[in-house]
């Protein structure tokens, strides 16, 4: 498999950092091998024909040309390979992506909210439940319009970067405040449009730590090229420490009523 993967490497594919990404790369390399074989086959045939059948060499053309059925066999072979790729890899892999959502207390949930031209990450806090957010509450101090009165919002916090733990399943819920953006995580082999008025989930399991840039992959206005975000995958214990640090402090939690102004400052 490693030797087959050389085609991806030659083509500049970046390293993979998610569990399912390996399968994506595998599928990609198989498709590329298929393409390469076809391209080389065609080109060889092409060049040979051009040399062999040029007017000087072959002044009299043959009315019938190729008589055999080799082309049919090649076409059928291509169909078979495509069918295998489709049925064997593409369908089951996407079925897994779109239906087998992980659940349980261990799953990390993040809401990634896009606007021109930045991302804001909304973490649900220890209760793993997002507080309500309403577009008419949006203001300078409350960029996502979170209803801080909501019971689920008490322990929520905002962050400018996407921080995730390694080896834990993560669900990133993507949405947008204004136009369509796109959260593109190349090391995770994942991309999801942030469509205003809709929320879309994507899930993956990071398998290596690191810090990468995230891309806005959908034209979103004049500043599109500069809408750089960051994603950091940490060791689990570092992540837990980071999480705890950012949750509105325990003191405030014990207060009968959380002060919206203060929890706001968590961002």
């Amino acid at each position, binding site marked *: 498999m490693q030797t087959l993967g050389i085609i991806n490497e030659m083509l500049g594919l970046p390293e993979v950092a998610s569990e399912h990404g390996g399968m994506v790369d595998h599928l990609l390399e198989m498709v590329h091998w298929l393409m390469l074989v076809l391209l080389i086959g065609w080109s060889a045939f092409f060049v040979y024909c051009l040399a062999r059948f040029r007017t000087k060499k072959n002044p*009299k053309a043959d009315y019938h040309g190729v008589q055999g059925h080799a082309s049919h066999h090649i076409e059928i072979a291509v169909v078979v390979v495509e069918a295998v790729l489709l049925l064997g890899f593409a369908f089951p892999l*996407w079925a897994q992506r779109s239906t087998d959502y992980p659940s349980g207390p261990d799953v990390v949930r993040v809401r990634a909210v896009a606007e021109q*031209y930045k991302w804001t990450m909304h973490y649900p806090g220890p209760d793993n439940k997002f507080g309500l957010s309403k577009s008419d509450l949006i203001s300078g101090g409350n960029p996502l319009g979170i209803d801080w009165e909501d019971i689920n919002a008490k322990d929520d916090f905002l962050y400018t970067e996407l921080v995730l733990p390694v080896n834990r399943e993560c669900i990133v819920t993507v949405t947008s405040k204004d136009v369509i953006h796109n959260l593109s995580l190349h090391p995770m082999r994942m991309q999801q449009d942030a469509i205003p008025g809709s929320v879309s989930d994507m899930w993956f399991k990071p398998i290596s730590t690191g810090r990468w840039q995230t891309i806005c992959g959908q034209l979103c206005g004049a500043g599109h090229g500069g809408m750089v975000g960051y994603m950091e995958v940490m060791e689990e214990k570092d992540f837990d420490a980071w999480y705890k640090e950012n949750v509105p402090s325990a003191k405030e939690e014990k207060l009968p009523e959380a002060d919206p102004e203060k929890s706001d400052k968590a961002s």
Partner: protein
Amino acid sequence: MGAEVSTAETEEVHAHDDDHHHELPFWKKYVFSTDHKIIGYQYAITALIFLFVGFYLMMVMRWSIAHPDKELPGILAAFLNKSWLNDQGMVTGDLYNMFGAMHGTIMVFLGIVPLAFGAFGNFVTPLQIGAPDMAFPRLNMASYWFYFLGGVVMLASFMLPSGAAEAGWTMYSPLATTAQLDEPNLWWTGQTFWLFGMVFLISSSLLGAVNFITTIINLRCRGMTWMRMPFFVWAMLVTGFLLLLAFPPLEVAAIMQIMDRLAGASFFIPTGLNFSGAGSVDAGLLDVAGGGSPLLYQHLFWFLAHPEVYVLILPAIAIVGEILPNNIRRPVWGYKSMVYAVMVLGFLAFIVWAHHMYITGMGNVVSTFFQATTVIISIPSVILLTCLFISLWGGSIRFTVPMLWALAFLPMFGIGGLTGLPLAFNLIDLHLHDTYYVIAHFHYVVAPGTIFGLFAGIYYWFPKATGRMMNNTLGHLHFWPSLIAMNGIFMPMFVQGMAGFHRRWYDGGANYDEITSRIIFDEGSFFANLFKDGQAIEMIDLNVFMTFFVWVLCIAQFPFIFNFFYSIFKGRKADSDNPWRATTLEWSAPNKPPHGNFVTEPVAYRGPYEYSVKGHATDYTPQFERGDDGVILGEEDPPAAAQNDGH
């Protein structure tokens, strides 16, 4: 009766031609003409001009990508409004977006489709089926003028204070709906002009499509049965259907977006859109009702835009399909399978559109359906290409200039087609979507692909249209640098795309240094020494490499422009009405065909590609060469033996 005889005959009659027809005034003959050939020329000239406009926009963009921190060179800046540049004379994000959107629009809707379908379709189709003109000549004129109007509206939008449209050629809502909302008069904005321009262009295409299909179905000459139609005509028929049925949904989308922009509707605007103020709209909640869906626009748009891909490519394949047998002097291999393949393609093209929308988050059922149809549609494409490749076997290949373009088309289109395959798979697409991999893929299909096919067509039918040949040497000077430059531009994009370079970054990725500064050639390596004084070559340096080839490609077009105009007036005269010794019907008409096209009533006696028939005096047996006279209108194909043994 041989071809030579009929040629002599037609020339004689041609000489008298002017006496028969009363001379029309200039504006009626060349401006508001109803003659399909004149309309074809009008389309060709207008579309070529638009192709160069689109090319210019691309040069500015590529400059910005390669040198985001350098002033735009005067030769490029000379044609644009200086206030669009920033205070150091560099390209801004707004300008880049505007040019990006208009490059796509102009190339697709004002350049390639009108050239491929409007110009070649108009000029060649009636000639090839032996019709005196299109079925509805006045409608034909109307289509051209709708197209012209659309083009004027699109170009005029550059003059507006807001500039032209700037939300990508796809015009996704809500960006397209909310862009340029800060103008006092929303009618006078580039976005709105774009929509009205599209309505004109779509009307033009619809009228054209009705005309083409009717012409092909109803105006075939005596003996021109379905399976005797040249492949070009088949492709035009299928293209006509694609335009006819796919364009109306985009018209709907355009009308809805017009309603959104001008009447305050919210078809594509969801509830609670809130702008932070960084965009062009005032900060805060948008003052609309909401309740619409941005995805609806995407569905309607891609319902057109995927078939549109085949509208772009089929005429080019068809042109190659005409030129190839002529220059290999044997019939095209698998004519019937090509016809069926093109029909299947025309069918499937309508039900693959959502593969452009994988990243919108798609459920399992929809995704499975669209992945399957997308992969299936690759099969007829492979069949078409394979048939063309296999045709070469056993031929006697002449390397004329049109043939060079046609031959180059095959591998270029092959690369473009093959690289579409990974994009068909949902999960891979999640990595590659909107990266340069996609850009390279579809540009290989339409730039070195379709445009090469169109150049081939221009060189091939030039003598029919003007009576003169284009210059051979200049043709070579045009072809070889173009071939090299095209690959120099698009090949590195695959690498960039795999690495994660996204499209529509006006600075070519300078902001994404983590992705773009990956090293390809180490410090001190051979290429590093060669190109960058020993410094390591990074991914982003490919931008400079590609932009260099854009200049090469630009310079390579000058021989063509010169050749085109020079040859119209001073080119070598074609030695006969059939200078390429071809078989299809258009070569039986006199050069510069008169109004009504044919001097004697054309009859098709056999299939379209009867080259090197055994026992025939010459190596080509034209369709119009008198043979078995038993053919009548509407009769099914006579047996193959009867076709071949006519002489």
